[in-house]
């Protein structure tokens, strides 16, 4: 089999599994079949990765989906090292998560629905990864959104947190910024989909701009294919001596490409939960933790990073600056919020947002500084560590009967040793500890950002500084997370007393993923691009210092000080109360969006439009009887007004010939007088 054929198989196998699993009612069988199919896909993806990881690229089969006069829209695969490794990661993690989920949902009556929705997502995700043109990427991009929508709403009949007695009884003390009335799976899935669509509108404009560029250049065929996009980018980047007319075309095309880059990044802001569209991701934690582990942590949310990397040639330096700054702001902002979260999944969610921001900082550093390789490397290492952290979080939540309040968990290390140490390994990878995978990739991102800052100077320092600040906080809040859950005394004996490690199958999944958090020659470390350039050493020192300071601080606050009987954390919260409150309130962004989107555009403006269209509800109830019908200053009211005017005119003219002699004489007299006068004047 050629690599191209394999890539199509890898893409379609999960779809096949999804189709089969929709018909299965037995959760065990469905999980089993899905896991086996995904395992086969993993093996195929591995052969694909081995074939291209040396640096080759393979163009797989391509079919025309639609033919439209000057251009066509196609479906096909394209495999380079980035795509192959990403596909392998998606398949491998999906297999592991399916096995883990068989245990995680063993007492959920709806568990049989999980595998097909999950496989549908996997197929769409592989489509994004392996696609050979932007059109197919966009289609699959939307479909991963569907997978996310379905899985966030897995428990669609759960009530909103505000009226959910279980939530109210168990919620953490510090959950203040959360809009409880809107915190339910049914609302979270809607929010995720619609907020993603905000980004996708930009994405569509980006595609439109590319079409305009292609038409301007007179290109035909699969104009949205990577090949053509690269050629157009090359044309813009290398202006030659041109006539005035050619210059005009060049200006148009280069403008279009800049718009396209920003549009595509707009889509990435939505999908990868960047500021200001990041608020859907923490809400997405309403879905099953296992689904979150791969969709809202490891792969789907990283699709934005992947796509920007795929379209990297299109991004001019100005657009990259926007990417870098957005990433930097998100990185720090999400980290500050994560510091004060009490829900153990919320910490992980904000941590994901923050790490995605870090990847965009890497991308924003530009090709000269090795930004793309650094960001992709961090995408890969983060995928494993964050997926593991989520699975461990799932194990903890399951063991503690659904409780996820950091204030009440504690001392679980003795009851769940496997989960504790596996999550510690994942944690250290995320923090960038030497010998762990994250060390390499985080160092690469910071080195790229530093390199770009040194060469460009000025504003280019922003993303680097923000990323450093974010990394400092990451070390602190992630250690807080782990120390709170696994060390210290049991804070709530009833809650944690029966906690235990998961079943063997689930444990095997966790343990198998541990090596992938290490930076060893035979693991993912072998495939990571090594950081290079002069900025490498200072960046590494910076990263280590940040890790030491942040981590040391967390160790002191959450491990050493409590042993000495001091509650430093509470003291800190008191002394920096306004800052603490601002972080706890999520910087007011959720509430601002709620005011602007949900209430403003969604309710008030829509009702104003509806009112101006048909008039109020009272008018609509009294239409049948002409006497009761109300006048209304609406579009429909004007229509009725015209009709009523015609009716009055008719009634008025009818009264002229109602058989009254006087009226006839008067009219005759008037007509004759007017006629005579008219004739006389003429």
């Amino acid at each position, binding site marked *: 089999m050629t690599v191209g054929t394999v890539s199509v198989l890898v893409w379609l196998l999960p779809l096949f599994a999804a189709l089969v699993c929709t018909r299965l009612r037995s959760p065990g069988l469905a999980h089993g079949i899905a896991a086996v199919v995904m395992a086969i896909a993993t093996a195929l993806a591995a052969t694909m990765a081995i074939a291209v990881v040396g640096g080759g690229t393979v163009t797989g089969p391509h079919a025309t989906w639609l033919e439209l006069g000057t251009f066509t829209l196609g479906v096909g695969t394209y495999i380079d090292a980035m795509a192959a490794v990403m596909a392998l990661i998606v398949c491998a993690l999906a297999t592991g998560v399916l096995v883990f989920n068989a245990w995680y949902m063993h007492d959920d009556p709806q568990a049989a629905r999980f595998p097909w929705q999950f496989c549908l997502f996997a197929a769409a995700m592989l489509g994004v990864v392996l696609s050979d043109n932007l059109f197919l990427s966009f289609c699959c991009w939307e479909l991963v959104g569907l997978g996310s929508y379905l899985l966030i709403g897995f428990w*669609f*009949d*759960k009530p909103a947190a505000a009226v959910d007695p279980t939530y109210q009884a168990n919620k953490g003390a510090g959950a203040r910024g959360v809009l409880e009335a809107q915190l339910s799976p049914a609302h979270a899935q809607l929010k995720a989909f619609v907020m993603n669509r905000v980004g996708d509108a930009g994405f569509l404009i980006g595609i439109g701009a590319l079409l305009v560029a292609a038409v301007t250049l007179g290109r035909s065929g699969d104009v949205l294919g990577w090949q053509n996009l690269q050629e157009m980018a090359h044309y813009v980047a290398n202006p030659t001596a041109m006539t005035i007319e050619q210059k005009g075309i060049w200006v148009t095309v280069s403008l279009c490409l800049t718009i396209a880059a920003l549009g595509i990044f707009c889509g990435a802001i939505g999908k990868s939960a960047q500021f200001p569209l990041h608020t859907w991701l923490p809400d997405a934690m309403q879905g099953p933790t296992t689904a979150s582990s791969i969709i809202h942590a490891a792969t789907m949310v990283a699709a934005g990073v992947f796509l920007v990397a795929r379209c990297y040639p299109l991004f001019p330096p100005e657009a990259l600056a926007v990417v870098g700054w957005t990433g930097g702001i998100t990185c720090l902002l999400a980290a500050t919020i994560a510091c004060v979260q009490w829900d153990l999944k919320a910490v992980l969610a904000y941590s994901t947002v923050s790490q995605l921001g870090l990847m965009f900082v890497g991308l924003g550093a530009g090709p000269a500084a090795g930004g793309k390789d650094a960001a992709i490397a961090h995408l890969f290492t983060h995928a494993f560590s964050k997926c593991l952290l989520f699975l461990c979080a799932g194990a903890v939540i399951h063991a503690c009967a659904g409780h996820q309040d950091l204030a009440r968990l504690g001392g679980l290390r003795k009851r769940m040793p496997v989960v504790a140490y596996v999550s510690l390994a994942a944690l250290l990878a995320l923090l960038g500890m030497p010998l762990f995978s994250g060390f390499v990739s985080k160092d690469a991102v910071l080195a790229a950002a530093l390199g770009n800052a040194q060469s460009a100077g000025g504003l280019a320092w922003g993303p680097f500084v923000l990323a450093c600040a974010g990394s400092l906080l990451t070390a602190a809040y992630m250690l807080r997370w782990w120390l709170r859950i696994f060390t210290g005394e049991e804070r709530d004996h009833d809650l944690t007393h029966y906690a235990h490690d998961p079943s063997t199958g689930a444990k095997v999944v966790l343990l198998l993923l541990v090596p992938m958090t290490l930076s060893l020659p035979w693991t993912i470390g072998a495939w990571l691009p090594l950081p290079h350039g002069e900025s490498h050493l200072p960046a590494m020192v910076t990263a280590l210092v940040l890790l030491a300071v942040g981590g040391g601080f967390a160790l002191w606050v959450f491990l050493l000080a409590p042993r000495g009987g001091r509650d430093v954390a509470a003291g800190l919260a008191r002394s920096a109360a306004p800052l603490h409150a601002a972080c706890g309130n999520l910087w007011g962004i959720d509430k601002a969006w709620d005011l602007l989107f949900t209430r403003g555009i969604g309710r008030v403006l829509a009702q104003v439009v509806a009112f101006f269209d048909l008039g109020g509800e009272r008018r609509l109830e009294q239409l049948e009887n002409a006497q009761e019908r109300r006048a209304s200053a609406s579009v429909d009211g004007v229509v009725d007004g015209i009709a009523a005017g015609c009716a009055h005119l008719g009634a008025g003219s009818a009264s002229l010939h109602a058989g009254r002699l006087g009226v006839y004489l008067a009219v005759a007299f008037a007509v004759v007088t007017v006629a005579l006068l008219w004739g006389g004047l003429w």
Partner: protein
Amino acid sequence: MGPLLACVLAPLLLAVACVAVPGLRAARWFALAGSLLTLGVGGFALADFAMRPGADFRLLESHAWSEAFGASFRFGVDGIGAAMLALSGLITAIATISAWSQERHPRAYHALVLVLLAAMNGVFTSLDLLLFYVSWEMVLLPMLPLVGVFGGDQRRYAAMKFFVYTLAGSVLMLAMLLGLWNATPAAGRTVVVPHVVVTAHADAATSTLHGLPIDLSHDGPKLVLVPRGFDLRHLALQAPHFETTNLLGVSLAAFGFLAVLLACLVKIPAVPLHTWLPHAHVQAPTAVSVLLAGVLLKLGVYGLYRVGVPLFPQQAFAWAPTLGVVGLVGILWGAWAALGQRDLKRLVAYSSVSHMGFCLLGLASGTVAGATGGMVQAVTHGLSSGLLFLLVGVVYDRAHHREVAGFGGLAKPMPVFAWILLLGALAGAGLPALAGFPGEFLVLAGAFTGRGAFPWLGGLATLSVVLSAAYLLWTVKRVAYGPLQHAEHATYRDLDGRERWALLPLVALLLAFGLWPAPIVDALRPACELLVQTLQGGRP
């Protein structure tokens, strides 16, 4: 008698049979037979165009009507007509199945539906402007009682509004008709045929063009003598002449285009001429709503494709930017109004306004992608809106109200219903892999690559992907998800056999056209290409 005449005559005869044959059961079988016949002929023609793409007219037939007026029963379909004919048959069949257990006056009801079907088929297959106009107006006759007798509490208001509004919209067409007839001398006129028309329509074997003798042997301008009459193809050949003919102080073309435009904009319906639609939909019974949204709104789009642009290309070209703006306003206004609705049917009605705006924007963009996309959107909107109206009917049958706020958590007692509702909503929101996507994407692609301000219109139209997802999925959430709102809803039965049979074809086609739109696009594209060439030929 050819198949297209059968599509018009058979429903009329079956309608008579409905009334004549006693017994309550037979009528619905007659209605189903009429619609399946239409579906068969339309489906066959569509398949033919998909396999052998071309811009020519097929299944041509002509029967004498009035020699003196030059009017005949001329029938023929191109890809667009075939698609519309198939849609008309399919939607009528589904509407018939959904009204299978119609209790009030079933014979009259099905007879009216059959008359409606005949009229719609007449519009979609007629190549004679007089026949087109008669069919166009005849659509209103059965609709008046279908809404005004079989409708809801405020049915008389809604029916009258629909009838008078749309009649007033198309009344100028009659004047246009007379003007066009008058514009040709009794002896006919010799015109130069544009090259694209020769390529698309001329028959080299018989040396004819649309049945008129033409000399193809030389390289010079191709001349043809066009007789006086109402043949749409012959009238289109005289298009340049209409610009210089005077009617009531303006050029015949300016008057004629305005007349067609007004009639079509009311039918589509375009904002701000749309307010008859929510009333008609809310009051109409479910099956009539399905017909109204599924087929009747497409008459407006079809009228522009078949009459407005071919007969008056210069006017169409000049009006295109305005039409684009009207389309965009419809897209956004409809979406926003849908977001503010409390009644499920009214909500779906406004989503129709929004979706039909895409058809207008696509056609106005003057690009192949846009025009084809507009037509694809017209077809797929028929499927998705039909599906949504059927689903509203399903909950109305159980709850006897349509207030969105009165539902919640229906996914528990009615899982199949909830899945299909989600599918319909996602199709309406233009999710790839479902049929709503190709049309919407092509229209946007067309707008972006259009001339002048069209890229900006396209950019603003992308807002609709946010709004449509918001109002449709928010509705799904409020109706199907969350905890069960009322305890008595727990006893609601899921979709029964008849409801499933009505929904199944729509679900299947929404998936099929979404995953593989190539056949229908291939069938529509050549006709749309010719249309775009005609439109661009109208450039001054």
